């Protein structure tokens, strides 16, 4: 077992055991924190597909995160008010069922990623970073002034959505759901990375001309990666909204995009468990530092800086040595 694998296994074990321990010790907030970390990790795993495998530095992933969030907010608020979403051409009702909401979140954010990706992928490098940022901002400003769903105030739902056979109101079962989805996404990431698609995508990141010369369309490879990536981040957005029972434009702000990206880089770009390590460390830091001083952002900044400067390959790179990911 390589050191990286050992680290991954320990991390996963921690994610299973810590909330159980918290439950036993009656510390429900620890579970909430862990849920936040797991959901952010899921969003970051999504970004890691675009960023780590495809080399697509998207500074607009908050758009997908937010679309997922609004998918949940809109469906649930309509279910709450018994007002159908649409009556024509077909009747669409709101819902409080998580599986349905997830599906809608995945489809909606995937579709948005398809459109944004198709347009953005005409550019590359720094321009790509900036055009994705621009799309993110467009969605952000749109939601701020979207009066029907609360504008900047956002949308609250009063009760967490349901999952057949589980009491999602209790922290632990909801956490479990999120963790299972994270594991599924990690599995998918791992498979993708090793698959023919992943191989071609990685090559498209490094030498697009070569990929085209062997008969593959680099843009199409990237687009598919971008869509998968956006859909996973969208799913995370739906969960995040459910965790907070609230969704608002803040989920689509460029700072949110930056934060998701920071999680990936912090953990290790292209590393399977990079986003997970990044999210766990970030959430923990945020929680611990916040209690120490009003100026805790300074220390957060210093720690992040230390990681970029002295830990190539992020946390996973630091723990497990180089190789595997890329930076």
């Amino acid at each position, binding site marked *: 077992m390589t050191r990286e694998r050992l680290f991954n296994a320990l991390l996963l074990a921690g994610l299973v055991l810590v909330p159980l321990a918290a439950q036993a010790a009656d510390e429900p907030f620890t579970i909430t924190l862990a849920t936040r970390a797991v959901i952010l990790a899921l969003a970051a795993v999504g970004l890691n597909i675009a*960023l780590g495998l495809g080399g697509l*530095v998207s*500074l607009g992933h908050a758009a997908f995160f937010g679309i997922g969030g609004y998918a949940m907010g809109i469906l649930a608020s309509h279910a709450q008010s018994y007002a159908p979403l649409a009556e024509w051409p077909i009747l669409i009702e709101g819902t409080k069922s998580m599986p349905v909401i997830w599906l809608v979140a995945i489809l909606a954010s995937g579709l948005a990623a398809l459109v944004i990706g198709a*347009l*953005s992928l*005409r*550019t*590359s*490098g*720094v*321009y*790509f*970073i*900036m*055009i994705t*940022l*621009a*799309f993110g*901002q*467009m969605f952000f*400003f*749109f939601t*701020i*002034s*979207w*009066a029907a769903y609360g504008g900047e105030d956002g949308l609250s739902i009063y009760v967490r959505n349901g999952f057949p056979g589980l009491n999602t109101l209790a922290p632990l079962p909801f956490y479990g759901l999120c963790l299972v989805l994270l594991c599924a996404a990690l599995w998918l990431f791992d498979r993708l990375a090793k698959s023919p698609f992943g191989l071609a995508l990685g090559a498209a990141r490094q030498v697009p001309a070569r990929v085209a010369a062997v008969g593959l369309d680099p843009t199409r490879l990237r687009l598919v990666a971008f869509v998968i990536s956006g859909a996973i981040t969208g799913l995370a957005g739906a969960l995040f909204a459910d965790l907070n029972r609230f969704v608002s434009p803040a989920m689509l702000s*460029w700072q949110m995009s*930056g934060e998701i*990206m*920071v999680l990936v*880089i*912090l953990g290790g*770009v292209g590393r399977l468990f990079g986003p997970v390590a990044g999210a766990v460390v970030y959430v923990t830091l945020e929680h611990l530092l916040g209690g120490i001083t009003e*100026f*805790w*952002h*300074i220390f*957060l*900044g*210093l*720690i*992040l*800086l230390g*990681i*970029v*400067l002295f830990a190539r390959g992020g946390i996973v790179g630091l723990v497990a040595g180089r190789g595997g990911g890329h*930076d």
Partner: protein
Amino acid sequence: MSPILIIEQVLNGLQFGVMLFLMAAGLTLIFGVMGLINLAHGSLYMVGAFAAAGVAAATGSFLMALVAAMAAAALAGALVELAVIRRLYDKDHLDQVLATFALILIFSEGTRWLFGSFPLFLDIPDALAGPVTLPGGIQYPLYRLVLIGAGLAVAALLGLLIGRTRLGIRIRAGENDREMIAALGVDISKLYTLVFALGAALAGLAGALVGAIQSVQVGMGEPVLILAFVVIVIGGIGSIRGALVGALLVGLTDTLGGIFLPELFKLVMAPAAATSAGASLASMSIYILMGAVLIWRPTGLFGARA
């Protein structure tokens, strides 16, 4: 809508554009020439504004305040370059994003720690206060005219520096291949510290000049930063001329969009809804502009490379 108003609004758009250019100039210098994504550029802008406010309060001299703004920002820039940025040149954009993101946190809260949580005072010097009457009877604030002049002067000087001087050529060479320019005998590290400090000084200058008509407060740099990025991306990264054109385009779009879109919507909608819908679309308009430009020309209007 009278023609005078339209002319005045066009002027406002141009002026807003020049204001953006002041900020974008330093950014495009660092970003294009040194290949560095500096999210902390907004922080240097803030440093300039705070230094100016501090010195203006102490000395009462606006000129001193401007000098202080440039000096403080240049110093902060040089320190940051020596301590952090120079370790990032050979890393990719991602690490730069993370590190400079961290710098924003440090700068913002550090400034708040030093200066407190409340906005500071920095005002236009008396000599430049108040409006002047332009031909055609347009009343226009003198200070804004001065801003336009300052912006254009910065544009010209920078264009010359980067395009024509050997210093400029070497800086650009270093952007293409840092290792190689060093192997040809150029001390690129020193050069980059200099450029970074210069870019920072420009940000500081912008912060002080603009701070006098806006609010000097923690976090003031971030909204401008995003706009400045939009500007240099539209113009084409690394191109001073592009930054100027981009800035004017963004300034005009933002200003005129905010005014004319609601009017346009009123033709087809109830006034209240039109105002709100028009304002929504206006807030997205520069991003739509940027998206459109990049889709049409993937490396910006004057950019050559990605």
